[in-house]
């Protein structure tokens, strides 16, 4: 379970582990509940995340897509250099708001 903080229409989600296939469904449920609750801006604090795989990337994209439809946004913070580089190689570094650690 991630650490979640709400403030009106914004939320900060801090996963406790890597965003990878075996645990993606759990994080998906958490993010979905925020969206259903009317949250429009989500910060995902990646301080505990050392690695994101393609399933994790897909989840981040899906969340971003949903938020963007409602004129909201997804932001990734405390992203390590390896993950930032991966997002760049996948041409996603300009698609997401990314703040490195």
């Amino acid at each position: 379970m991630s650490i979640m903080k709400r403030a009106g229409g914004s939320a900060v989600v801090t996963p406790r582990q890597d965003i990878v296939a075996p645990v993606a469904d759990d994080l998906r449920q958490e993010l979905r509940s925020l969206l259903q609750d009317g949250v429009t801006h989500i910060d995902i604090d990646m301080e505990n995340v050392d690695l994101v795989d393609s399933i994790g990337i897909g989840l981040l994209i899906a969340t971003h897509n949903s938020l963007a439809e409602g004129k909201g946004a997804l932001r990734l913070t405390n992203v390590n250099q390896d993950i930032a580089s991966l997002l760049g190689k996948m041409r996603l570094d300009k698609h997401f708001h990314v703040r490195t650690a």
Partner: protein
Amino acid sequence: MFACTCSEGRLSIAMSAELRNIDAACREAECFIDDNDLASNRFAVLLGLREALTNAIVHGSCNDKDLPVRLELKCVNTAIHIQVEDQGGGFDWLNASTTPPSDPRKIDGRGLAIIHEYFDEVGFNEVGNAIRFSKKI
């Protein structure tokens, strides 16, 4: 099912096609990385493993626990070699895209592109149910 064999410069794993076994395989791979002085390649190796294993479990074995997935890591001279094999029918790897989707909103289709990005050589057996990839270290 999860069976692991480790010898000098080689790690072999046979596991049932369950996503949770990917974490166990990566824990063994981390020990292999440490034992073989591969720390500078940790991210690439673990990421490549996760991509290959996820594809094998989800697409190859269709999450069927009775269809085992096999993994081998070898450290030979100045390169690391990885092979992942499933018991599925394979796929048309010759026509599979090796680059990321041009539309950043697309949520899938990046697994193979990631492996190609981080490894020097990538290949499949004829059927397409075994992937081999390697990287100079």
